[in-house]
C-alpha cells in the first residue's frame, strides 16, 4: 500500500507569512536578498538605532549575514514603496514566549530616518508585536548617544527601567551608559494602525 496525501500537495501548510504595509513603507519577512542592502546601510555609517548590541561584527557580508540570522527569528526588512529600496530592518530579539516579552532592534538608513515617515515602520512593527503576536512588553536597549538622538520618541512612548553605567564602548572607544526602556501592551493604542490608514494582512 502506498501513502496517499489526504490534501492536495499545492495547499500551504503552516502559518501564513505576514506583510505589514503602510503609506510609505512595506515590512517584508527577511530574506537573503535583503541582506546586501542592509549591509550597505551598516557599512556606510554606524547608524544602528536601537541595535541590541553596541559591538558590530565584521562588515564582511557573509559574516554579517550569519550574525543577523542568529540574532532573531522575527525579522522584517523595511522597503520604501516609492522606489522599492530596502532602507532598514526591524527585529524582534530575545523572545520569551513564557513571559511574553521581546526586544526590539532597528537598523535604518539615517538619510531616510530624518524625513520622519519611516517611523511608520516602527508603528507597524510594534502593532504586529502587540496585537498579532500577543507580546505583553517590548524592550528597547541602546547606548546613551542613541538615546539622545531618539529622545523625543522615547519620552512619548517608553519607560526607562535600567541604566548600566559606563557599560559599553562606543565607536570612539569611550564608555557610554547602556539604557533599557520598555513599552507595555497597555500603553499601546490598538486602533492606531487603522486610524493612520496602515494595513496589517
Amino acid at each position: 500500500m502506498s501513502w496517499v496525501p489526504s490534501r492536495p500537495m499545492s495547499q500551504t501548510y503552516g502559518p501564513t507569512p505576514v506583510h505589514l504595509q503602510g503609506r510609505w513603507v512595506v515590512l517584508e519577512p527577511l530574506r537573503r536578498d535583503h541582506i546586501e542592502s542592509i549591509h550597505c546601510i551598516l557599512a556606510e555609517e554606524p547608524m544602528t538605532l536601537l541595535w541590541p548590541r553596541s559591538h558590530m561584527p565584521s562588515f564582511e557580508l557573509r559574516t554579517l549575514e550569519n550574525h543577523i540570522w542568529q540574532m532573531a527569528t522575527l525579522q522584517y526588512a523595511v522597503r520604501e514603496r516609492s522606489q522599492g529600496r530596502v532602507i532598514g530592518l526591524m527585529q524582534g530579539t530575545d523572545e520569551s514566549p513564557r513571559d511574553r516579552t521581546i526586544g526590539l532592534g532597528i537598523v535604518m538608513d539615517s538619510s531616510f530616518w530624518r524625513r520622519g515617515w519611516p517611523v511608520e515602520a516602527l508603528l507597524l512593527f510594534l502593532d504586529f508585536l502587540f496585537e498579532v503576536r500577543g507580546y505583553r512588553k517590548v524592550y528597547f536597549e541602546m547606548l546613551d548617544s542613541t538615546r539622545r538622538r531618539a529622545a523625543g520618541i522615547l519620552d512619548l512612548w517608553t519607560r526607562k527601567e535600567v541604566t548600566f553605567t559606563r557599560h559599553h564602548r562606543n565607536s570612539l572607544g569611550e564608555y557610554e551608559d547602556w539604557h533599557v526602556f520598555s513599552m507595555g501592551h497597555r500603553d499601546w493604542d490598538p486602533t492606531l494602525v487603522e486610524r493612520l490608514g496602515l494595513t496589517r494582512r
Partner: protein
Amino acid sequence: MSGGTPLELTNVQPSDLTWISRVVGLWQRSGRWSFALGATPSPTKLSRLLWDDVPTQQVAREDGAVFALLQLARPELDDGIAKLELLLAPDRFSDLDPLIGEFVARMFHEYPLRKLCMTAAADELELPPCLRATVRWAGCLTDHRHRGGSRYVDWNVYEIWRHAWFGSESGDEAS
C-alpha cells in the same frame, strides 16, 4: 560558622550536577538559575548552565556538603564586564558572606574587570550583606517574569564596581 570544619571554596566537579538538580528552584538564585514556574530543566540544560561560557566557578562546601555555587559567567572582556551568578542555600547566609566576598575579590584580581553585573527576580534572591554594601542598583524590569496565572514579578539589575569593592577612587581602569 557551624561545626569545626572550615568552610571552603573548591572547584566545581561534574558530580555537582546531582545536587544542583535537587536544589534548583528551591535555593536563592540569580538570573542564570531562574526557571519558569513549574519548569523541569533537563540534565543537558543544567549542564550547559554549569559549564557554558563560565570561565570560573566554585562551590562552597562544609564536610563535603555543598551549600553554594558561585559563577563568573558571560565575560565581555573588551568592555571589562562579566556576570556574577549565585545559587545559595537560604539558611547559610552568615556562613556564605565571607566566601562570596572572597570569590568576588578573586574575580576582580584575576580578570581585567571593571564591574560585575547581576540580575535576579525580586522574589528569588536576597542580597548577601557583603554585596549589599557595595552593589549599585541599576534598575528594575517591572513585571518581567511570569509567576503563574496573571502574575508577573520584577527583575532587579545590579552592578558591582571594582573601585567600590576595593574602596578606591572611581575609574574605568580594570586594575
